[in-house]
C-alpha cells in the first residue's frame, strides 16, 4: 500500500506530490491569514471593552455548527468553481477558535496589570497594543494553532470541487479505487499538520515574551 507514496514518478510534474503539498500549504496559510485579520481584532476589541462577549460566544458557536462541506457546496453554487469557495469555507472554520483565543487571552490579563497601564498614562490603544495583546499572546497562539490543525485537515475538501491540494490524492484515489494513493494523501496531511504546528510553535517562542513563560524556565537571569 505504501508503494504509491514512495514511487518517484509521483514526486514530479504538475500533479506531483510537491505541487500538491505546496497547494495545500498555500490554502492553509492564506486561510489562517484572512481568518486572523478578521478574528483577532474582533476578539481583542470585545475582550478589551468587555462589551459584546455574548456576540463572540454566539457567533463562534453558530460558526462551529456549520458543516464545512455544505458551506463549500453552497458557495460553489453561488459563485462557481475555483479557490474562492474553498477560502470561504475554510475561513469560516478558522474564525471561531482564533476569535475565542483572542477574546479569552485579553480577558485573562490580570486586571491589576491593566489598571497599572492606565495609571501610568497609557491611552486605550496603548493599553490594548502594548500591554493586553503581548500578555494575551500565549492564548492567542493557542487558538491560532488549534485553527491551523483544523484547517490543514479540512483543506482536503478543496479537491471535492476540483481545486488542488493533498485532497486530490484522497479523492482521485477514491475514484480510481487506488487505495495506496488515498493512504498517501492521508499520511501527508497528517505530516503537514505536524510540521505546520511545529512552525507556529517556533514562531510563538520567538514572539512571546520570556517573562510570560512559567516561572523558573523563562528569561535570562
Amino acid at each position, binding site marked *: 500500500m505504501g508503494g504509491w507514496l514512495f514511487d518517484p514518478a509521483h514526486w514530479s510534474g504538475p500533479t506531483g506530490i510537491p505541487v500538491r503539498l505546496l497547494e495545500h500549504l498555500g490554502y492553509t496559510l492564506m486561510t489562517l491569514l484572512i481568518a486572523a485579520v478578521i478574528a483577532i481584532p474582533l476578539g481583542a476589541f470585545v475582550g478589551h471593552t468587555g462589551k459584546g462577549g455574548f456576540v463572540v460566544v454566539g457567533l463562534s458557536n453558530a460558526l462551529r455548527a456549520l458543516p464545512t462541506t455544505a458551506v463549500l457546496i453552497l458557495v460553489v453554487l453561488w459563485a462557481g468553481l475555483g479557490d474562492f469557495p474553498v477560502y470561504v469555507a475554510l475561513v469560516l472554520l478558522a474564525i471561531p477558535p482564533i476569535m475565542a483565543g483572542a477574546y479569552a487571552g485579553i480577558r485573562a490579563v*490580570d486586571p*491589576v*496589570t491593566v*489598571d*497599572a*497601564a*492606565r*495609571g*501610568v*498614562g*497609557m*491611552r486605550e490603544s*496603548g493599553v490594548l497594543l502594548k*500591554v493586553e495583546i*503581548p*500578555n494575551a499572546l500565549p492564548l492567542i497562539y493557542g487558538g491560532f494553532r488549534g485553527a491551523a490543525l483544523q484547517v490543514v485537515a479540512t483543506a482536503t475538501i478543496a479537491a471535492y470541487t476540483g481545486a488542488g491540494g493533498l485532497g486530490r490524492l484522497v479523492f482521485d484515489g477514491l475514484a480510481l479505487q487506488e487505495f495506496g494513493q488515498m493512504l498517501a494523501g492521508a499520511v501527508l496531511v497528517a505530516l503537514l499538520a505536524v510540521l505546520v504546528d511545529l512552525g507556529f510553535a517556533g514562531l510563538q517562542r520567538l514572539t512571546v*515574551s*520570556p*517573562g*510570560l513563560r512559567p*516561572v523558573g524556565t*523563562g*528569561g*535570562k*537571569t
Partner: protein
Amino acid sequence: MIEFRAVTKRFEDGTIAVDELDLTVEAGTITVFVGPSGCGKTTSLRMVNRMIDPTSGTILVDGKDVLSVDPPTLRRGIGYVIQQAGLFPHRTVLDNVATVPLLSGWDRRKARARAAELLEIVGLDPAFGKRYPAQLSGGQQQRVGVARALAADPPVLLMDEPFSAVDPVVREGLQDELLRLQAELDKTIVFVTHDIDEALKLGERVAVFQTGGHLAQYAKPAELLSAPANDFVASFVGRDRGYRTLTFLHADVPVHPVTTAKLGQRVTVTDWTLVVDDQDRPRGWLSGVDGEIEVSERDLIAGGSLYDGSTLRGALDAALSSPSALGVMVDDNGAVVGVVKADDVIKALAKARAAGEVPK
C-alpha cells in the same frame, strides 16, 4: 499641593463612596488616608489622577483642576503605585521602570539610563534590570513599582495600599525605605492603607475615613492617638493607643550598666548576664547556671527586641520582651550600650505628660 473641595463620588447604584470631602494635602509631605474597607479612601486617591472622576466638587493639583487635563497626560505627571505592584509581566524590570519616560517621548537610551539609576535609588541591584517581574519576590516587585512611579520625577506620588500584599518583615523594610526616599526626594505623597500602624508610622498627616465616605479626622499621628475626634476614630486607632502614643515620644530613659560575657569566655553566672559577640553585639542571656562554665551558644536564652535609643515605645517593648526584664539598648553599630527598665519608661512618660509634651 493637592486640594479636595467638596468632592463627592456617587456610583451608578447610588452608593456614596466619598461624601463632600474637603481636605488639603501639603506639598512635600506624606499624607496617609486610612480607614476600613468601603470608606472611600481608595476612591479619593483614584480621583486625583482621574482613574475615577468625581460626581461633584473640584480637585486641584498645584492649583490646577484635574478635570481640565486629559487623563493620560495628567497620569504621566503623577506617580502611581498600586497593591501587588502591577508590573507588566512581559517587560523586563528595566523596561517597566522606563515606561513613563518612554510614553513622554524620551529616547530609549536615555529612558533606560534613567531606569537603571532608579533601580539603585530604590535599593535594587541594577543587574535585576534584565529580569522579568515573575522572577522577583513580592518585596522586590514593589520596589520596582515605586521606581516606575518615580521614573519621570513627578512631584506627586499616589500609593494605593502598596505594601499590603507582602509579609510583615518585608513590609517594615519597605516602609523604612519609603521614609528614607522621601527624606531625599521631598515628594507630595498620598498613601492609602487600612493598617493604622502603617498610617501612624508613615504619615506626617493622617486622614481617617469612616464608612460612607466621611472624613472623620485629619490630624498629625500623635494628635490622632491622644485626641481622637469621635468614637469611631478612637476605636479605629485601637485599644493600644496609649502604648502607641509612646512611638511619638523621644524622652530620655536612664540607661543602666549590665554584666556581659563573651562567647567562649569562662564565667561564673550569679545574675542575669548578657552574652555578646566579638563586636559587643547581643547574642542572648544567661541565668541560673551552677559554678564556672564556658559560655556557648547552647546555653543562651533568646533575647527580646532591641532599643535603639529613639522612641519610648522601643524602650518599653525592649524591657517587656526581654527574659530578664532588662531592655537591651544598642548603638548604631548594634553594640550594647546598657539596659533600660520598664519602670523608668513609665516615669519618663509621666514626666513628659507633666511637661506638656504629650499632645492632649
